[in-house]
């Protein structure tokens, strides 16, 4: 007993010494520091370490800012992306890149840089809206299928299989042929075509989360089905959707470009990366820059979204402890 007391005293003395030391050095004395760690804070920290993901994020931000603020700086600096001065067309058309027109001018004398920036608006809008539609439908369908199982599961997943059975771009073209070509119809078509994959990913994610004991524990506390689904299952099952959704934005941008290239999407003179490519195709040999810039824009933006998604996947994986 005496022995223990003795040890105790020494500990206290050491602590006192330590505190004095801290005070002497002007440090704040505080209890054991335990910063609260949350899944999101951890995710952001891990994401910041992934250089490719950060590069993707930066590029997406640049494109986003340029697209949103385009009205402020593009017309005065580069000229109108749509309207053309009919008297000047022959003088201005097919100019190679220069200080005045950094990306050159197209067949009708319009500034390619201006059109690429305005094309970004279309791409981002379609990408985000189409994926939003897919995610909303997909989450709902996946949740119903996984949570209730049985007949509803069979019906929803077989319906998804039917969607998968059609060649994607043909299905999209058929839908737009039905709805008529326009930007709105493009994102509606892409959005509707995207839900089955989201539903599948979400369903399997819920099925694995559902087996966790904390779901039983919540039920044993008297929580109702909707509450268990929304508070205990969803938050644990959305991580794959965030990843998949981010990557899907890239895919949707690509689909929009493909549809517009085929003339089923955004209609000229409204610029979109896809229809710019289509217009530039015939002049590829004489004026390759017209094709280069929208092509590069598609490549880099889609890549940026995929890199971001990839980074998010690693960052959201709690098992990847550094």
């Amino acid at each position, binding site marked *: 007993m005496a022995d223990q007391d003795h040890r105790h005293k020494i500990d206290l003395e050491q602590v006192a010494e330590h505190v004095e030391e801290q005070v002497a050095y002007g440090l704040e004395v505080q209890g054991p520091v335990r910063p*609260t*760690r949350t899944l999101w804070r951890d995710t952001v920290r891990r994401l910041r370490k992934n250089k490719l993901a950060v590069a993707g994020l930066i590029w997406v931000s640049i494109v986003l800012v340029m697209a949103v603020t385009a009205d402020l700086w593009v017309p005065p600096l580069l000229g109108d992306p749509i309207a053309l001065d009919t008297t000047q067309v022959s003088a201005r058309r097919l100019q190679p890149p220069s200080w005045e027109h950094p990306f050159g001018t197209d067949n009708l004398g319009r500034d390619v840089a201006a059109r690429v920036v305005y094309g970004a608006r279309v791409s981002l809008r379609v990408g985000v809206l189409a994926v939003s539609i897919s995610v909303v439908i997909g989450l709902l369908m996946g949740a119903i299928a996984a949570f209730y199982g049985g007949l509803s599961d069979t019906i929803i997943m077989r319906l998804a299989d039917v969607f998968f059975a059609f060649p994607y771009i043909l299905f999209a073209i058929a839908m737009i042929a039905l709805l008529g070509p326009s930007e709105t119809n493009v994102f509606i078509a892409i959005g509707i075509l995207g839900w089955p994959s989201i539903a599948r990913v979400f369903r399997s994610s819920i099925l694995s989360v559902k087996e966790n004991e904390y779901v*039983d524990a919540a039920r*044993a506390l008297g929580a109702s089905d909707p509450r268990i689904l929304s508070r205990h299952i969803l938050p644990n099952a959305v991580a794959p959707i965030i990843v998949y959704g981010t990557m899907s934005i890239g895919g949707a941008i690509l689909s929009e470009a493909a549809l517009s290239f085929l003339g089923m999407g955004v209609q000229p003179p409204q610029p979109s990366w896809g229809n710019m490519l289509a217009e530039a195709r015939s002049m590829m040999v004489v004026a390759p820059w017209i094709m280069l810039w929208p092509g590069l824009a598609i490549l880099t933006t889609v890549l940026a979204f995929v890199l971001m998604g990839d980074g998010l996947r690693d960052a959201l994986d709690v098992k990847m402890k550094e």
Partner: protein
Amino acid sequence: MSTLLEVNGLQTYFDTIDGVLKAVDGVTFSLDRGATLGIVGESGSGKSVTALSIMRLIPMPPGRFAGGDIRYEDRSILEMSAAEVRSLRGNNIAMIFQDPMTSLNPVYRVGKQIGESLRLHKGMSRKSADVRAAELLDVVGIPNASQRAKDYPHQFSGGMRQRAMIAMAVACDPDILIADEPTTALDVTIQAQILDLMIELQQEKDTAIIMITHDLGIVADMVDNVMVMYAGRPVEEGTVDQVFYDPKHPYTWGLLDSLPRYDVDDKGRLIPIEGQPPSLIAVPSGCAFHPRCPYARDVCRAEEPKLSNLGDGHVAACHFAGSSGFVRGSTAGGAA
């Protein structure tokens, strides 16, 4: 003491592709306010299904109640509507799960999870639930509770998580606490602390506890009555003293013989019960234990023994229970 919970001839069956699985087949017991019942048996003997049946947490289908009744304060739990059962769960009857590592939701702060049942059943505001949750954490012995309530489960150790689980279970002052092997996932020193905590809370609130375990040591320590289960059926029921010091069923003998003991000079080998528990789809004819019973006779293969009363509430389901000359180790002959 008044009877709080009565389980009468409960039969919980599961329809599987191989046939009907009789997970619980005729369990009968009653639980008084403030009493502790231990349910003991091997894995797959129907202990957990009994507990889940009381909470009506059996997934249906494939599960179904084929017979019997569960009455809580004279209301049949089996006949309640879904909403009535929900208001019972967590509020009147609460459950502590086996694995504290997976029983807490990783995305919510511990305090929030403890407060959930308070918000559900007592209609507490977010704020008062938070305050109460911190108090509860303090009650279950978490130091610096108001601070720790803001932690996430992964910041808790196993023992702390089980304490948090207990705080969750007792948040609404339930009448009955069902603990399904609450200490199996913990190391021994923590086990004792958790059991002490449960006893303490029980004495304070006069809570009845159903302790499901295969650890006979726990049963001997904290339980008033014991039910020994085998193949979904109760084989022996009685007070701790009756079952431990005067067991009448060969299965109970087997369980006790397979315990390591330090109070016996003879440092002999443990005596295991030979064989495997039977499949619950094809339960052996007659007494379900007869293929493993060293005392089995012809009557055991042919006829299912009824629970026979041995006096003072001590019952056993064996043809020979209580008959003179049928004692532990008497006959090793006639083994199947």
